[in-house]
């Protein structure tokens, strides 16, 4: 998912869930900040490096792919962008190493989503934003794993874009190119993807790189053969998934606010968007590279307030200029604490299933996790 959904759509969902304009902005900012909070950024503002929620292109290019390096990559990407659906998933007749990777495949409505939302309850708005980013990505990034793996994340030439045409569906073979500098050509279904790398642990085989940005576009429907699926095709209906992500975010935030007593999987607050359903569907289905403008104007209509554009350095000064003992109370301080708590929880859950691909949560993570007033 991109800024359009993580920032603007999250703002809309938060506002519909009952948060004020200012609170919704903070949640949306935190949700989008997950995509930029790298070690490079944290070094610049002298923040805790353990709180990194993403890795920049350059950081990834320099990342080691030995076991320790892979654990580091997996910790970040599995926790924040590819939350595993089922850590106990079974695959017959395979060795443990394969099964461990298989179990990291991302998907919605898993136990970890519940834990993610529950962890954010009673915490600062920054933690709510982090949880909404993670939840939304379980829909967009479904069927890929947040660890480099050829045998899980590879795709092949079976990749068709689907266009509903009345009762039937037209298909068009997707053409991939390897030019990251060129924008995707929506008209001709030409998209950029990562190069095929036969090395199992190549960074090119991380997440949905081999499927390009297709999972990030809300309008697209496609069918393809995932490497792990035993030759069974997957039909990915992003418009339907993005609508579910949006309504599940509303449901989750209502739970966090205390409007709902519990958070269950497979529940979507469709009622909450009743009067705007067609509008939301239209934004989601509109064929465009970035839907920020549409979401923004919808959000501004909802709240009657101006939604400022996402500015990465909005809270840098506040954090940098705060005395050390007060940093935790700044916006970024609360974000980093929330990120560390969430990362610690996910690593611990993965490790509990005897899966060592994400390593072990350090004591600092756990101390943060079990601290009652993480807000």
């Amino acid at each position: 998912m991109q800024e359009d959904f993580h920032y603007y759509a999250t703002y809309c969902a938060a506002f519909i869930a009952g948060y004020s304009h200012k609170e919704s902005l903070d949640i949306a900012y935190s949700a989008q900040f997950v995509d930029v909070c790298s070690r490079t950024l944290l070094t610049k503002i002298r923040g805790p490096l353990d709180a990194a929620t993403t890795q920049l292109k350059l950081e990834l290019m320099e990342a080691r792919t030995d076991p320790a390096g892979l654990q580091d990559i997996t910790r970040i990407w599995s926790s924040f962008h590819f939350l595993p659906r089922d850590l106990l998933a079974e695959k017959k007749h395979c060795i443990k190493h394969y099964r461990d990777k298989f179990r990291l495949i991302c998907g919605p409505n898993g136990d970890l989503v519940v834990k993610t939302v529950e962890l954010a309850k009673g915490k600062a708005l920054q933690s709510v934003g982090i949880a909404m980013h993670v939840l939304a990505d379980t829909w967009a990034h479904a069927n890929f794993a947040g660890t480099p793996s050829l045998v899980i994340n590879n795709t092949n030439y079976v990749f068709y874009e689907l266009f509903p045409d009345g009762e039937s569906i037209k298909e068009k073979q997707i053409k991939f190119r390897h030019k990251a500098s060129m924008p995707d050509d929506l008209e001709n279904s030409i998209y950029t993807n990562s190069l095929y790398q036969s090395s199992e642990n190549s960074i090119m085989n991380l997440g949905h790189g081999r499927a390009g940005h297709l999972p990030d576009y809300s309008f697209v429907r496609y069918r393809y053969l995932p490497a792990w699926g035993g030759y069974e095709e997957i039909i990915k209906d992003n418009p339907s998934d993005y609508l579910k992500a949006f309504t599940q975010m509303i449901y989750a935030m209502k739970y966090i606010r205390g409007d709902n007593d519990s958070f269950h999987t497979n529940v979507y607050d469709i009622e909450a968007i009743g009067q705007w359903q067609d509008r939301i569907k239209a934004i989601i289905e509109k064929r465009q590279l970035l839907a920020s403008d549409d979401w923004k104007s919808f959000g501004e209509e909802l709240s009657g307030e101006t939604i400022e554009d996402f500015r990465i350095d909005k809270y840098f000064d506040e954090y940098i200029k705060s005395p050390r003992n007060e940093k935790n109370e700044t916006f970024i301080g609360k974000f980093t604490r929330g990120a560390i708590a969430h990362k610690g929880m996910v690593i611990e859950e993965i490790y509990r299933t005897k899966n060592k691909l994400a390593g072990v949560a350090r004591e600092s993570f756990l101390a943060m996790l079990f601290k009652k007033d993480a807000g």
Partner: protein
Amino acid sequence: MTIFQRVRSILFGIATFIAAILFIIFPDDGAYGWVIMTLFLGLTIRGLKCIIFYFTMARHMVGGKMILVQGVIILDFALFTGSISDVPKIYILLYLIGIHAFSGVIEVLRAMESKRTVAGHWKLKFSHGLVDFLLAILCMVFIRHQNTSLLIYSLGLLYSSVMRIINAFRKTTFILIE
């Protein structure tokens, strides 16, 4: 590719380049033995790696059987290479012609397939296939020359080393996941 991998790639490219030049300048039987030994070891390790990877991981992967086939063919070539140190050089030449022609055709076919599904990434594969095919033709042309096999092998080595060095400087397309 990390900086360390790039430096390693460049150094390896330079080393193979020097070796190729030395083989061309001093083509004796010792050099010939080294070539066979290096090919044998390199191909054996690569073939075994592919086969082990298939049985542990890739057998569950769509298209994974290709990795097994690749491993078996490479290992087969390795064993064959190891067994030809005592045969007349004419057979080695025929072997080289076969290898280069076969991999040239395969590479060109793969380039054509890439052209259909991946825009703008087939040219390198195509030129690689073409060079392989040209080497096979060169083997045919110079079949009577005593040290042709070594010369052809050295030319191939030169090409690989230059490609390795060029690749070390290439940008690697990477999808930034958001």
